[in-house]
Structure formats: structure tokens, C-alpha cells
């Protein structure tokens, strides 16, 4: 161990005492639900089986973890606290400067890389399941970021607007046969209309009340979708939604299809790649609009509102209207994403729009750093892409047994990550904010210097 001048000796007796208490506590916490498992037997009666080895393992991990914390992490933390605040090293500033153009360049050539590496067969999966899926969440994260990150309004019912967009596209396309490119803006407008409708009465509420009411609205919309069977077909969902065309040219193997018109051999990957670039474009538009809006008076008012609502009111900012614009703007992007989702899947049902989905998007925004565009994008890649990769890791099955399904643990980890991030870095992983107004030179400021007021 390093012996610095400020280095504190680890109190061994205390460390073991703490570890002992943690072990006991973990035993008490995990005994009922990890030590015992309720399963049904052949006659469908509920029976109890014991899992002592698992319980023992979990408790041991907790105790040893506490010991490790006392011996390794605590001294490290106390040493770090004593170190003078370091200025950002140049290599980090360098990476920060070039990261965004590099990332955009990478996502643009991503389909080509995947095809070059894996051939068209496997590329469909990587572009569709991985690329498009992640980009949808990046876009949703950026949309919610306007509401949560910029305006400081905690919206727990964001998925409702996503649902409005998806159902608008599905119903209008099936009933009136309208094209994707007409319905895309229309879905956005309808979603933002719902945002205004729901937002108007509730936006004068305090932050935590607002969160719960948006949650209630999200659930109400979902229950209505489930029960209004005549319109939405209830749980069964809407099937065979028209797929988007290449500006009028359908992606099929017929005479007038995309492949024939451009003289290519027909392959399902054409549509996938087209969809990939559509969602990439939509996501970039979201980011671009957000960045520009931050420099407009309304964007500045949003951020001022996040910092201190009372001060805003005393300065004559109409807080209700300002919040409403943020809410409507966020809802609009959710509507775009929703209509894209419906067009890509070809099938939607209320299952896709549960509270869990709202929670996933919210955790992406929270983990990425509320207000930080790059942070949200990285969080979406890590969380959504990470779970997609987890699905493929077969060697985990060898370790934990054949019934092990890593995706089960996805939300468990998301929830835990949200708690840990709030404790460890409440501003998110990327905690710098780019100032939109500056005197002489633009400098990124650490978000911990930014005060957050009532929201």
C-alpha cells in the first residue's frame, strides 16, 4: 500500500466489525426471497424449495464486498479527496473535441463496416437488432432530454407519446393508405398535440407531483389503448402495418421494387439499411434541433427554469408556457420515433408501451447525464446495445447453467445503476455542460458547479 503523508491507516477491527454486520444484514435481507423459492409442482400447487448454496454465495459476496470496500475503496477515496483538483489533461480535452465528429462518422459508415466484416446475412441482424434498436433509444433519450435535462421536468409517462406516434402511423397508414413521409410529421404533430393537452393542466405542479401525474397519464393512455378494441384491436395489437418505401419505390423483389429499379440483386438488407439511415437522420435532427434551441430565448428559459423556478417567475418568464413548449417538443420527437417504430416493426401492441419502457428511457437520460447529448447517446449504446450483446453471450450459459437468461437481469441492472449514479455522480456519467452564453471564450463547465433548483 502506498504510504503518502495523508494516508490513513485502515482500522482492521472496525473493517471486520462492519463486514460482520453487513453479512448479518445481507442474511436477513436475502433469507426469504433468495433462500427460498416458490415453485409449482406437477399438481400446480405452490411448494417451497430451498436454495442454501445460492443464499450462502450472495451473503458471502456482500460480506467480502464490504471488506473490500473498507480495505481498498475507502482509502482510495479519501486519498483522492485530498488530491488538489486537477485540471483536465490535454489528451482528454483532445478526445472531447474530436469525439463527436468521429462518432457521427462512425455511425454513418457503420452498415458498410458490418457488411464488410460479416457479409450481408449476419449484417441484417447487426444493423437491425443492434444499430436501429440503439438509435431509436438514442432518439427517445434525446427527446426526453429536452424535457428532463433542459427544462428539469421529470416525465415518467414519456412512452405515452411514443405510443401516440406509433398508433397514429399504424391507424392512418392502414385506414387511409397514407405514405410514411406524410405520416411522420403528422405523427409528431399529433403527439405534441397530446403533450400540450396533457401538459396544460399539470405543468404548474411541483416536480415530484408532476412526475407522478405524467406516470398516471401514461398508464391511462395505455389502458385506453388496451380497452378500446374497436380502434386499436386491444392486446392483439395492429398487424401488417404498411412498411416504408424508398420515396415511393417499395422494397420488394418485383418489377418496380427497389432492387430492380437500381439494378441490384434483391436482398432484405436494402430495407434494413434504408431504415437505419432514416432513424439516424431523425436522431441527428433531434440533436441538432436541441442544440439550436438551447441558444434561442426559449431554450435559455428552459434551463433557467430548471435552475430556479421562482427566480424565473420574478423575471417575468411565463413558466407554464415555457414548460409547455418543452413538453410539446419532447412529445413531438417521441411521436416521430413512435411512427418510425411502427413502420419498422410492422406490428404494434400495448406491450411495447409499458411503464418499464418509460423507465428505460428515463434511466438512459439519467445515466448519461441530464442535459448532455453525448452522455445520453453513450448511455443508450451501453444499455440497449449492451443487453443485445448479452443475449449473444453463450459462454454465460456454461457458467450459470442452461436456463440462464442474461436479459432477465437487464432491468435489475438498470434500476441499480440509477440508484448508484444518483449517489455517485448525480449529474450523470458525462457531467460537463456546454454553456450557451459566454463572455470571452467557450469553456465546458463541470455540471457539479451548476445548481439545480425546483423543477
Amino acid at each position, binding site marked *: 500500500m502506498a504510504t503518502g503523508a495523508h494516508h490513513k491507516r485502515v482500522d482492521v477491527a472496525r473493517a471486520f466489525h462492519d463486514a460482520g454486520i453487513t453479512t448479518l*444484514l445481507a442474511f*436477513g*435481507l436475502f433469507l*426469504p*426471497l*433468495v433462500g*427460498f*423459492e*416458490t*415453485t*409449482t409442482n406437477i399438481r400446480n*400447487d*405452490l*411448494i*417451497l424449495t430451498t436454495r442454501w448454496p445460492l443464499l450462502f454465495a450472495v451473503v458471502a459476496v456482500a460480506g467480502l464486498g464490504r471488506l473490500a470496500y473498507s480495505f481498498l475503496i475507502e482509502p482510495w477515496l479519501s486519498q483522492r479527496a485530498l488530491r488538489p483538483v486537477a485540471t483536465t489533461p490535454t489528451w482528454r480535452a483532445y478526445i472531447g473535441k474530436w469525439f463527436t465528429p468521429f462518432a457521427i462518422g462512425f455511425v454513418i459508415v457503420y452498415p458498410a463496416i458490418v457488411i464488410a466484416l460479416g457479409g450481408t446475412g449476419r449484417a441484417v441482424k447487426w444493423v437491425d437488432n443492434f444499430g436501429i434498436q440503439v438509435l431509436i433509444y438514442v432518439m427517445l433519450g434525446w427527446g426526453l432530454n429536452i424535457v428532463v435535462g433542459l427544462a*428539469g421536468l*421529470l416525465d*415518467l409517462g414519456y412512452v405515452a407519446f411514443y405510443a401516440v406516434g406509433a398508433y397514429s402511423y399504424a391507424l392512418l397508414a392502414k385506414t387511409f393508405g397514407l405514405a410514411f413521409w406524410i405520416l411522420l410529421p403528422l405523427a409528431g404533430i399529433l403527439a405534441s398535440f397530446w403533450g400540450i393537452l396533457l401538459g396544460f*393542466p*399539470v405543468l404548474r*405542479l411541483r*416536480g*415530484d*407531483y408532476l*412526475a*407522478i*401525474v405524467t*406516470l*398516471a*397519464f401514461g*398508464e*391511462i393512455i395505455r*389502458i*385506453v389503448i*388496451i*380497452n378500446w378494441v374497436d380502434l386499436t384491436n386491444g392486446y392483439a395489437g395492429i398487424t401488417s402495418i404498411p412498411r416504408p418505401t424508398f420515396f415511393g419505390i417499395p422494397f420488394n423483389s418485383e418489377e418496380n421494387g427497389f432492387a430492380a429499379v437500381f439494378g441490384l440483386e434483391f436482398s432484405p438488407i436494402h430495407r434494413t439499411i434504408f431504415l437505419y439511415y432514416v432513424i439516424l437522420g431523425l436522431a441527428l435532427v433531434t440533436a441538432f434541433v436541441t442544440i439550436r434551441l438551447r441558444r434561442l430565448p426559449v431554450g435559455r428559459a428552459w434551463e433557467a427554469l430548471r435552475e430556479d423556478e*421562482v427566480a424565473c417567475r420574478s423575471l417575468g418568464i411565463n413558466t407554464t408556457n415555457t414548460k409547455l413548449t418543452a413538453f410539446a417538443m419532447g412529445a413531438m420527437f417521441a411521436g416521430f420515433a413512435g411512427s418510425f417504430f411502427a413502420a419498422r416493426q410492422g406490428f404494434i401492441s400495448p406491450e411495447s408501451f409499458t411503464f*418499464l419502457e418509460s*423507465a428505460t428511457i*428515463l*434511466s438512459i437520460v*439519467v445515466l448519461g447525464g441530464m442535459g448532455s447529448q453525448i452522455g445520453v447517446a453513450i448511455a443508450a449504446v451501453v444499455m440497449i446495445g449492451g443487453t443485445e450483446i448479452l443475449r449473444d453471450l453463450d459462454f454465460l450459459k456454461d457458467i450459470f447453467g442452461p436456463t440462464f437468461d442474461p436479459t*432477465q*437481469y437487464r*432491468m*435489475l441492472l*438498470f*434500476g*441499480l*445503476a*440509477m*440508484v448508484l449514479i*444518483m*449517489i455517485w455522480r*448525480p449529474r450523470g456519467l458525462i457531467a460537463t455542460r456546454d454553456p450557451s452564453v459566454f463572455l470571452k471564450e467557450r469553456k465546458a463547465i463541470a455540471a457539479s458547479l451548476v*445548481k*439545480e*433548483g*425546483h*423543477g
Partner: protein
Amino acid sequence: MEVFLQQLINGITLGSIYGLIAIGYTMVFGIIGMVNFAHGDVFMVSAFIALVAFLILVSFLGVSSIALALFVVLIVAMLFTSLVNWTIERLAYRPLRGSFRLAPLISAIGMSIFLSNFVQVTQGPRNKSIPPMVQGEFVLFTKNDYPVTLSHKQLIIWVVTAILLACFWYLVAKTSLGRAQRACEQDQKMAALVGVDVDRTISITFVIAAALAAVAGTLYLMYYGVVSFADGFVPGVKAFTAAVLGGIGSLPGAVIGGILIGLIETLWSAYFSIDYKDVAAFSVLAITLIFLPQGLFGRPDVEKV
């Protein structure tokens, strides 16, 4: 009339369960000003603990007396749930005091997701149903061939709720612990200056909230005989609605709000549409917050700069 009376009985039963959960919301909100979003899931966890305890008693130990089993299950569930909530407060909420305003709420949402998925992973995603613990009913009267009944289960719920509320009221109104709690509610810094251990008081508040949620969880399991990992969310939101309706921070308000929500839900299901019963409860929440944010018995809250 007889249908209405029957629904009244059902509604009060359901409302008692909501009321017990709502007290947890209202107490925690009163003392640290946060919406404990994970409280509904603590309730669900308590129902699972009660389920495990019940199965241990019946299948491993062979207890045949239902009254004894129910009593032991209640105590066990209260103890273990208190431990769970105490730990949650210690790990997820205490480090966030003094952080920005939405931090505890986001942490609580994370905790809520964690708890429900933890139960899903450890106990499986299926509904867990047990054979009815208590059977039998009193027929109060019969009119037009429609018997108005009060089942033994419902009577147990009423009695247990009433006894616990009396104990709880005594605790808050008459003991030094209750005084410390009310002092922390008014002004934490001042309470600390006059010698109240604020951290300990907050911990005990979470423990009491969890114990009452555990009672609700046990009664829920006994009443419906089925529980699943997702059962924390909707009752949690409804109990929060009850707390808001009664005026958040007000203890009698939480109980009355709970009973009102229970009545609204059962009457709505009986007379309008059972599919939209959750919509009714959620709409009450929105309407209350918009038009009567201080609730029926709460004080209007003034924002200080």
C-alpha cells in the same frame, strides 16, 4: 341498494389495504419531503415474504391452526420488510439528502425497478397463488334474493387495520418517538439542535412505513390469494393517490383517502366498467393534484425562497 351495500363492504376492505400503504407515503413525504416511489414495491416484497413464511409454516412445520399461522406470518413479514426498507433508506436515500431536488425521486424509481425485478428474477415471473387461508362468511341480510355478505377475510382485514391504526396513532400522538417525528417534520435543523436524533427518527419512520406496508401485503395475500412481482406498481400508485387525496403529510387523511379510493374503485367497477377501474383511480390522482393540491386534510404548501 343491496348491491350498493355489498360494494360498500368490498370497497372499505380494499380501501383499508390502500390506507395502510398510503400511511407509508404520507409519513415519508411529511418527514423528508420525498415521494417514496419504491413504497409500492416494498408492499409487493412484503406480500412475497408473507407467502414464503406461510408456506414454511404450513408445509415445513405443519402448523394447522390458521389463526396462529396468520399471526406468525404477519409478524415475520413486518420484521423482514422493516429490515428491507431500513436498508433501502440507508443505502439509496440517506446519501442523497442535500442533493438536488429530483435526485431522491430518481433513486426511488431505480429502487422500485430493482425491487420488482429482483423478485421476478428470484421467484419467477408467474403469478403465485395459494389455496384460500380463511373461508366462510356472515350473511348480513338477504333482499330480492341478493345476500349481502361480510366474509371472514374482510372482517379480519377491518379488525387488523383498526387495531394497527389505533396502535400507530398512539405511537405518533403520545410517545416521545412520535414527538420527535413531528418535530423533524416541522424543522429538521431545529429538531437536531434540541437533541432529536434526526437520522434515527427518519430511519424509524421508514421502518414503521414498511411494517404497515407489510400488514397490507399480508392482508392482500390473504384476501386475493395471489401475488406476482408486478403487483407493487398499481396498488402503489393508488395508495399514493390516496395519500394525495387525503392531503399528503396528514395521517388521518391517508386512511380516509385510502378508503375513498377503495370505494371509488369498487363502485366504478360495479356501476361503470371494470376495464377502466385503474383509469378511475389515476384520474382521481390527476384531478386532485390539479384542483386540490393540498388534498382534503392537508395544509397548502408554500414555496419559500
